[in-house]
C-alpha cells in the first residue's frame, strides 16, 4: 500500500498501470460471455463453434432481420410498437417509482413519526417473500381495478415492486447528506417542504438517478408478469417477444441473442448518458446541485 493520499492525482506510473490492469481484467470477465452472445447473434445457419474465443460463423444479419421483422412491414411496425411499449413502460416505471419513493424516503430519513420503525420493517419484509405464484393474485387485483391489459396497470405493478428498494436507497442517500444545509435554509425562512424541494432534492440527484436506473432495469427485463397481464400482441413489451423464441423443445438461440443485444443497446446508451449524474464526488467535489 503506497502512502500518498487518495484525493490528489499523484498516482505513480506503476499505480496507473496496476489500476488499468485490474480494470481490464474486470472488463474481460464482464465481456467474455457477452462476446459469445454477440457471436451467436451474428451467425447464420448453424450455431457458432464452441472455442476459446467466440467468432461468428457465416457472419450475417439474418437473426436481426427475424427479430425486427425486416422486410415485412406489418411485423416491422409491430416490433417498433413493442419497442416503444418497452421504452414507455420502463420510463414511466422509473419516473413513477422515484416519484412515489422520494418523499417517503425523505420523511423516513428526516422525520420521526409513529409507525416509522414498523413501516421500515414491513418494507424490508416485503422483499423477503419469494414470489412463487404471485402472478395470479396480481392478475385478480388488476382485474378488480379494471387495469388489466393496460400499460398503466403494468407500470403500477412494476413501480410498486421497485418502490421498496427505491425507498431504502434514497433514504440512505438523504441520511448521507448533512442535515445542516436544510437547517440553514429553514433558519433563512424556508418551510420544511421548501427545504426538501430546494435543498435536499438537488443534493440527492445522483442517488435519484441511480434509483431510477434500477427501476428502469427491473421493468425493462421482466417478462412473466408482462405476458400474464397483457393480452394484446401490440401491447407486449420486448422481453415477452424475446422469450417467445424459447420453445418447449428447442430455442432459436440466434434470434434470442440478436434480440438480447437489441434490448441491451438502449440500456447502455441510457447509462452512458446518465453517467454524468454519477461522476464521482471525489472529482466534482462536494454536494453541489
Amino acid at each position, binding site marked *: 500500500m503506497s502512502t500518498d*493520499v487518495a484525493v490528489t*492525482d499523484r498516482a505513480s506510473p506503476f499505480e496507473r498501470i496496476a489500476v488499468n490492469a485490474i480494470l481490464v481484467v474486470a*472488463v474481460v*470477465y*464482464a*465481456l467474455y*460471455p*457477452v462476446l459469445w452472445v454477440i457471436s451467436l447473434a451474428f451467425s447464420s*445457419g*448453424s*450455431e457458432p463453434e*464452441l472455442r476459446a474465443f467466440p467468432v461468428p460463423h457465416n457472419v450475417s444479419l439474418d437473426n436481426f432481420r427475424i427479430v425486427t421483422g425486416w422486410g415485412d412491414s406489418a411485423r416491422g411496425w409491430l416490433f417498433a410498437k413493442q419497442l416503444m411499449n418497452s421504452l*414507455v413502460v420502463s*420510463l*414511466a416505471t422509473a419516473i413513477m417509482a422515484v416519484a412515489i419513493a422520494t*418523499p417517503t424516503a425523505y420523511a423516513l430519513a428526516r*422525520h420521526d*413519526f*409513529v409507525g416509522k420503525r414498523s413501516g421500515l420493517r*414491513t418494507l424490508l419484509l416485503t422483499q*423477503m417473500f*419469494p*414470489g*412463487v*405464484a404471485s*402472478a395470479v*393474485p396480481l*392478475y*385478480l*387485483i388488476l382485474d378488480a381495478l379494471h387495469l*388489466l391489459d*393496460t400499460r398503466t396497470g403494468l407500470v403500477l405493478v412494476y413501480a410498486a*415492486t421497485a418502490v421498496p428498494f427505491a425507498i431504502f*436507497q434514497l433514504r*440512505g442517500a438523504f441520511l*448521507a*447528506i448533512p442535515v445542516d444545509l436544510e437547517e440553514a435554509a429553514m433558519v433563512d425562512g424556508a418551510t420544511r417542504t421548501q427545504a426538501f424541494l430546494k435543498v435536499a432534492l438537488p443534493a440527492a440527484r*445522483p*442517488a435519484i438517478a441511480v434509483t431510477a436506473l434500477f427501476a428502469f*432495469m427491473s421493468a425493462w427485463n421482466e*417478462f*412473466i408478469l408482462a*405476458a400474464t397481464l397483457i393480452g394484446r*400482441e401490440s401491447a407486449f413489451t420486448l*422481453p415477452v417477444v424475446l*422469450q*417467445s423464441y*424459447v*420453445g*418447449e423443445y*428447442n430455442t432459436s*438461440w440466434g434470434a434470442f441473442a440478436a434480440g*438480447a443485444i437489441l434490448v*441491451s443497446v438502449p440500456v*447502455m446508451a441510457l*447509462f452512458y448518458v446518465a453517467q454524468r449524474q454519477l*461522476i464521482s*464526488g*471525489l472529482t466534482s467535489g462536494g*454536494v453541489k446541485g
Partner: protein
Amino acid sequence: MRRALAFLVALAVALALLPGCEEPARGIVVWHPYRGAEQKALETVASAFTAKTGTHVTLLAVPYDAYAAKLEAAIPRDNGPDLFISPHERLGSYLSNHLVAPAGDAFPDGDVARYDAKAVDAVTDRGTRYAVPLASKCVALYINTTLLPEAPATLDDLARMKGKLGANVWPLVYEAQSVYFHVPLLHAYGGQIFDGKTYAMVGPEASQAADKARDLIASGVVPPEPSGDLVKQLFASGRAAAAISGPWLAGDLPADVRYRVVPLPSIEGAGKMRPFLTVDGAFLTPQGARLPEARALARFFADGDMAKIRRAMGKQDVATKSVWEEHVDRPELRADDAVLAAFHEAALEAVPMPTSLAMRATWVPAEQALRKVIRGQSTAKEALDEGRVRYLDIMRAPPTKSPSPAPLMALLGLTLLALAFYAVKRARHPGFARELQDSKPAYKYVVHSALTILVLVVLPLLAGAATSFFAGTRDAPQFVGLTNYVEILTVRGAPLRDWLSHGSFYLTLVVTVAWTVVNVVAHVTIGLILGLLLARPFLKLRALYRVLLILPWAVPSYVTALAWKGMFHRQFGAVNAILVWLGAEPVSWFAKFSTAFTANVATNVWLGFPFMMVVVMGALTSIPKDVLEAAEVDGATRWQAFRLVTLPLLRPTLLPAVVLGSVWTFNMFNVVFLVSGGEPDGSTDILVSEAYRWAFARNAQFGYAAAYAVIIFGLLALMSRVLGKIGKDTEAKA
C-alpha cells in the same frame, strides 16, 4: 412539492397511456405458443377462416414459459381466449384447473377417422375428446449421409461405427441425460416411465435401459453432457454421424449438410426404440365452447386444405390423414418434404405421452436417477429405486381427514392479540397523542407509498401465504391447517438422524446460506473495488470502462446464464479449454457438488457485481471532497482514509443494498435453475428452487410451495433481525 409530484405522476400515467389506442373488434381469440414458420402458417389459416365466414380471428403468440400462468389467470375470469393451441400432455393440468371444455361438434364422432389414430388417442381423456388434433411431434434419427451412406439397422450397428468415422466424429449425439430422449431406450427394453397410475421407471427393463445409456457415453459413442445446443452444433458441423432429435432440428441445419431422417432403430436383444408422441391440439375454453364460430374454427384448423397449408408453410407433421394419402400419388412433392414424411412415419410408431398430472411429477425423479446412473455414481437398480421413493414421497396424499382448524386459529388469534395489545399499550402511553400530532406532517410524505405497497405488494403476498394452509391440487384444495409446515420442518417425518441427509430441508438450508454468503461477499468486494478504482481521477477511459462493466446487467440474463452453462461444458467449454491450456486436467463441472456450486457462483457473481458497482458509484458522489482533503491534511494514509472516512460515509447507502442483495440472492432461483439445474442430484438446489419444484414440477402442489415460501420468509426475517442487532452493536462500539 405537491404540484411537482402531481405533475410527475400525471406525466408517468400519460406516458403509460399514450400509444394506447384501441384495437378493432376481437372476434374469436386464439392463443398459441408458435413462432416463425408455424406462426405464419397459422396466420394464413386464420385469414382463410375470416375470408370464408366473415368472422374476425385475433391471434396472440404467448411465450411458452408464461403460457400456463396466463391461461390459469385469465380463463377462470372469462378474460381468456376462446381457443388455444397447446401440446396435449398438459390436458391433465388443464382439466384440473377447469380450463378446457369438451370439443363437442368441433370433433364429432364422424371425424375420428379423419385423423391419425394416435393423435385422436392423445387428445382423449376417459372417453371424452378435448381438442382437435393439429400436428404431431416426436423424435427420429437424423443421419449425415456423407458420413453414413446406409441407415444403420440397429443402435448397436451405429455404435460399432465408433473409430471408423474419422477423428473427432461421434457416431451418435442425443440428449442422453434428458428423460424425454431416454424414453425411446426405455421403451425398447420394454420399460416405461409411467404405467397410467404411478411411476414405473424401475425393474430390470429400466435398469438395462439406463445401463445402455451409460455405456453409450462411457464407450465414447455419444459425447458427455449433451445439451440440445450441442446436438445441433455437432450434427450441423459434421462431427456427429447421427443425431436423435425432433423436427425443429431440420430448420437449424445449414444447407451444405447432406442428411436424411429415418424412424429410430432397434436395439439388439431388445425391441424397437419408440419415442414419446406429443400432439398439438386446438383446445376450446369453457367460454369458447359456447360459441359456434369458435368450434367451427377449431375444426377448420384441421380441415384437409388448411392442414396442407400448415404442412407446406409451417413444416408441421399434421394429424389430418388426407394430407398424407394425397402425397403418395405425387412423388415430386414427397421428395420435397422427405423429412416431414419421415417424421410422420416415426410418429405412427410413437407412444402418446400420458396426460395425467401424476405423469408430470415423474420427470424430475426420473431425470435425477438417470443422471446418477450415467455419472456412474450408483448402480442402475439403486438409483432407479431411489427415484421411485422420491416420486412416492412427492405424491403422498394429503391427510384424508381435515384437521381441526383450531391450532391455526389459535396461532392467528394470538398474533392478532399480541398486535392489539402492543397497539393499545402504545396508544395509552402518555405522550402518544402528542407524538401522533407531530407525525402528521410526515404522513403526507408517506401515505401514497404505503397505499401502493399495501395493494400491489403486500396483498398478493398475503393471498399467496394463505394457500399454505391447503393441500392437494387446485381442483380439490383441502384445508390441512399447519400440516404443510410440520411436514417441511420435520423433513417429511424422517427420523432425526436423517435430518441432515441428502436433499433434506436442513441441508438445503445450509447450501442456501453458503450460496448467499459467498455471493454477497463477492458482489460487495468486486463492486467496491471497481467503484473506487473508477473514481480515480487519472483514468482516461473511465466512461468506456463503466459502460463495458455494466454489460452483465444490461444483457438479459436468460441468454447469458446459458452462455455460462456452455462455458462449463466438460468437453467443449471455454473454462476447461483454458484449464487444459494451463496444463491442468479438465473438470466435469456438474458431476460434483463443489464444482457445480462454483459454476453457479461464478455466473451469479458475474450477473450481480455491476449492481453493487453502480450503488458504490452513486454513494461515492455524496462524499464531500473537503472531508477527504481534511484527512489528507491530517496525514492519513490511503488505507486509513478509506477505512475511517470513505467506508463510514458509504455505509448508509451501501447497507440497504447489501441487506436487500442478500435477500435477493437467497431467493435467486434463475441462476441455479439455468446453470446447474440442481446438478448433481439436486445437491446445488437452494430453498427457493424447492418451492418452485413443488409449484410447477411436482403435481402442482401450490399449498406446499406456499408453505416453503412462508418458511423462507420467516428465516430471512429472523436473519435480518439478528444481523440488525449485530450491526447496531458494532456501530455502537465503533
